[in-house]
Structure formats: structure tokens, C-alpha cells
């Protein structure tokens, strides 16, 4: 349900931390849950699972292609296999294996969770930054692709993926992120959540940019502009109804994401818009470039992923409406 109440956006835990905690709970509930990691368990937070279930945790060493296909083998043999690494390594080094050993045969129990996505990992720089993962994961037939915005969303979506029949990619991040949801918020894979009601424009975001979209909506409200905010936590399959409604009712959409604009959520929203009610669209995201080292805050600012960038895109879109 949409609410008009202001979001406090107090800092919570990182989505990777929420993932690690969720895995332990799921491991306790289901003995078939197993986890593979590639020498990054202290960063992906699968170390919590390893500690409690050493027999069901498989350290694969720095060999992501092998890890992804091992996960596929485990899932084929009946396990619910979570495979985790930094998003850029899992998706790029494991892409061929995601394609041939998971997507093509349609291995339902396979769940890949990428951490350290986007540019907000900061100082480590572009070789570790995953800005193509949504595009690559969405290009795999049959894959479900999610990008939760906070702890509550992460725990709920990781949990939902266990009983979900289909291969899944979940994108999480390194930094602590603002709390958006109440603990009892319900999530359904493929169904977006309207966080703020609005009629003049719609801001659609995923992951880190959901909080920025909320902040942008508050700024716009101060200017007398009523902005709807949608958390598109599931990027594939996408919530066509919510997009079509937004296009028809607000006639202007800004898509906001910590991902290349060429291949992220934006192009997928645009596809739905073009197939339903064409409307003005703007895109906030990474523009055909790799980033650099810096603090997460500096990078988010330099590469234009703040609420003020969303506000500017909204102004531009409204001027073209």
C-alpha cells in the first residue's frame, strides 16, 4: 500500500549482511540448502552459514566458473544451491556456466547471489565493480533477477527464492543502506511496491537508488510536484501492470539505478512503456563508462546517482511532457 508518511531512511545494515543472515535462517529450516563461495565468504557474508553448517558449505577457491557449474550440479541433484561471490566475478566469470549449466537446462534450484554490486563498493575500483550484471542476468532465458533495496527486502526475497521454481540472480551491495521497509512488509517476486503515491511523474528504482528516489520525491513535493515512487525489486519478470499504470496515469517516468543505463532496468521499463502507453522517459544511471576509486559517497556523487540527479531528470522529463 502506498503511504504518504515521510520515510526516516535511517541507516541499516548492508544488503550483503542481510543475505548472510537470511542464509543461516534458511539453512536451519531446510537441510537441502547448500552454499558455494569463491574465497570471499568474509565479504559476501556466507561465512555465517559456513560457521553453522560446515558440511553444507563448499569453499570453491578462486575459481568462479567451476563454482557456478558445481552449484548447477548440486541443484540438479536436488539441493537448493546458493552460489555467491562479488557480483562482477559471479556473473562475468561464471556467465558461460550460468548460461549452459543453469539457464539452458532450466535448473530450478539454482540461486546466485552477487554482492558488492554497482560502484558503491568504493576504493577497490572498476575491476571489482559490477555495473553490467542486471543486463547479463536478464539476458538469460528463464532467469529471475532481483535487486533488493534494504535489509527487509533482501531477507524476504532471498527467502522467497528458496521455494521459487526457477533459477535466480539476486544483486546485493557492500555499503550500509537506509531502512525503507517495516519488518512485516510483504514481498512477492515479480510484484513491485509503490512506496510513495504520485500523479505527475513516476520514479522507478531498484537497489541503492530506491532511497534516492524517495528523497527526490520529497524534494519534488516541496516544489508542488507529485511524484510516485516504485521499488522495482524484481527486474525480471518485470511488473508490467505497475509500469503500464504509471505510464498511463503520470505520463512521465524516470528510471533510477546503480547500473549501466544501456542494459539495466531502464531499457526494460522502456520496452513495457513502448508496448503499452508510450510516455516521456528519463534515465539516471551510469553512462557508458567505468568508474574509479574513491569513497562510495564520492563516487555516487561524481557519477550522478544522488537524489538531486533524480530531481534534475524529473525536471527535464516534465519539461518534455
Amino acid at each position, binding site marked *: 500500500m502506498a503511504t504518504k508518511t515521510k520515510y526516516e531512511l535511517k541507516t541499516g545494515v548492508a544488503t550483503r549482511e542481510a543475505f548472510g543472515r537470511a542464509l543461516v535462517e534458511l539453512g536451519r529450516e531446510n537441510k537441502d540448502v*547448500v552454499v558455494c563461495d569463491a574465497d570471499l565468504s568474509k565479504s559476501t557474508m556466507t561465512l555465517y552459514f559456513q560457521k553453522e553448517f560446515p*558440511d*553444507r558449505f*563448499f569453499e*570453491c*577457491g578462486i*575459481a568462479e*566458473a*567451476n*563454482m*557456478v*557449474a*558445481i*552449484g*548447477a*550440479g*548440486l*541443484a*540438479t*541433484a*536436488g*539441493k537448493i*544451491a546458493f552460489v555467491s561471490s562479488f557480483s562482477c566475478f559471479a556473473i562475468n566469470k561464471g556467465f*558461460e*556456466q550460468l*548460461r*549452459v*549449466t543453469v539457464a*539452458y*537446462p*532450466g535448473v530450478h534450484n539454482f540461486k546466485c547471489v552477487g554482492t558488492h554490486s554497482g560502484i558503491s563498493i568504493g576504493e577497490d575500483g572498476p575491476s571489482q565493480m559490477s555495473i553490467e550484471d542486471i543486463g547479463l542476468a536478464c539476458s538469460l532465458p528463464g532467469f529471475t533477477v532481483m535487486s533488493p533495496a534494504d535489509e527487509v527486502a533482501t531477507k524476504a526475497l532471498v527467502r522467497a527464492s528458496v521455494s521459487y521454481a526457477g533459477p535466480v540472480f539476486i544483486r546485493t551491495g557492500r555499503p550500509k543502506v537506509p531502512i525503507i521497509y517495516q519488518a512485516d512488509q510483504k514481498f512477492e517476486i515479480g510484484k513491485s511496491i509503490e512506496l510513495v503515491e504520485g500523479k505527475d511523474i513516476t520514479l522507478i528504482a531498484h537497489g541503492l537508488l530506491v532511497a534516492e528516489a524517495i528523497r527526490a520525491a520529497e524534494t519534488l513535493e516541496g516544489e508542488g510536484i507529485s511524484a510516485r515512487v516504485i521499488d522495482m525489486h524484481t527486474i525480471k519478470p518485470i511488473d508490467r501492470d505497475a509500469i503500464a499504470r504509471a505510464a498511463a496515469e503520470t505520463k512521465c517516468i524516470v528510471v533510477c539505478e546503480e547500473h549501466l543505463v544501456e542494459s539495466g532496468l531502464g531499457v526494460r521499463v522502456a520496452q513495457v512503456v513502448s508496448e503499452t502507453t508510450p510516455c516521456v522517459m528519463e534515465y539516471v544511471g551510469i553512462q557508458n563508462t567505468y568508474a574509479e576509486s574513491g569513497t562510495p559517497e564520492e563516487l555516487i556523487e561524481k557519477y550522478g546517482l544522488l537524489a538531486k540527479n533524480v530531481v534534475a531528470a524529473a525536471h527535464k522529463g516534465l519539461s518534455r511532457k
Partner: protein
Amino acid sequence: MKKTKNVEELQAICRKVRRDIIVMLTAAKSGHPGGSLSAVEILVTLYFDVLRHDPANPKWPDRDRFILSKGHCAPVLYSVMAECGYTPIDQLNTLRKLGSIYQGHPDMRFIPSLEASTGSLGEGISLGIGMALATRLDKRPSRTYVMVGDGESQEGQIWESAMFAPDKKLDNLVVITDYNKIQLDGFVKDIMDVSPLAEKWKAFGWHTIELDGHSIPALQAAFAEAEQVKGKPTAIIANTIKGKGVSFMENNPKYHGVAPTEDEEKRALQEIG
């Protein structure tokens, strides 16, 4: 499935499988005869003597599993599975045709009793490792067998998986290399030499057996030996002849990926008998 220990019976099945391979590839007009013919004794020994499996119950959880990592040699696998009763024998000549269950490379969407969809080289051992880990975790008696090619062993992922299995002491896993010395562009030693293979696998921590891959008794003994090995996986380096059984195909790189003509089919079937 009832096991056939009798070597003469197994050899007779090998002749049938070689005939199937030649006939289905001729009908398909494309495909890979050389590496199918080199692997015949290995697959026949596995499916008719070694594997614990039940074609009437292909998803039996305690079954042994076989993965053909060198998926382009699908014809040998299709023939053996059909001879076992998994799939219809009378459809083998639909190989590679639209709508056929006998796809160009093994495809689980069309044959659910396959353990894996393969064709992109280098991935079968990793898949087999996942299955071996899962069955060990569930304390099942299942063993997992993976066949790779020698040319395929140029893939980096082969050696990632080769490092993994001994580290995890996966003694329910056997990898067989069909060492037929030829790949698409020519002889393996001229393209990028993979030798010495047995020494490589041994150095990676595998119990290693080198044998004549066309000797059924040697294969039977090796699979039995592998079953007794505790704490490490087994690698079998099977020295084979590409195109084995058809004189003009033997050791001829041309027949890695060229189907026989109808005239060649006749000559081949006469030789196989």
C-alpha cells in the same frame, strides 16, 4: 539394470553401437563420428556392466550418474542409452532433425533421463562434482562418472575442477579422458599439447590409471579399482583411436566432425560387421 560381465556380449553390443553411430550420422549428414567411435567400449562397459541404473526409473535417487562432457559425441551416448532402453532405438536416425529428441548435443529438455545438457566444453566435471557432493551429503551409494576429451582438456575449467575434487576427497567421482589424440583442427600435440595427461592428473591429487580404452577387461578392472579407492577421486586416461572400427576413419582428423557419405556408410558397416 542387469549387468553383463561377459566380455563377448559387451563386444557384441559395441558392434551394434558402432553401426548405430554410422547409420545415424549418415542420415543426419553432419556430426562427429571420430570421437563417438573412440568412446564406444568405455560407454558400453559403463552402461552395461558398471553403472547402477534403471532405465525404467531414470530418476532413481541412488543411481550412478554419467555425464558426457564432450557433448559433441552425442551419437555414442544416444545409441548406448537407446540400447539400454532409455529412449527409442527406431528414432536414432532422426538425429539433428527438427523436433528430434536426439539433438545435436545432449539436451535434457528433450531427453529428461540425461544427467546434463552438454556441448560447451569444459563444464562436465564441475557438474559431476556438484552431483557427487550432493549424493555424498545425502549418504547415497551413488557414483558419478564424467567423460572428457583430450582436446577438451585445453579448457581452463577442466583444471579448476581437477583441483577441487581431490581437495574435497570426492572418492565417488571418476573422470575418464577419451585420449584419442585428435581434435577438430588436427592432432592434439600439434594444436596445443595436453601431454603428459596421467602425470597432470596425478599431480592434481587423483588416483590415476592409464589403459587401453578399447580393452573391455582393462576398463572393467579400472572401474573396479576406482571403487576401492578411498579419499580421492579417480582419473582414467583411456588411450583410444579416433574413428576406431572404421579403417578409413581411424586416426584421420577429417572425421572429427564430418559425417560419412552413403558410400562410406556401406564400407563402414561391412568393416564393423
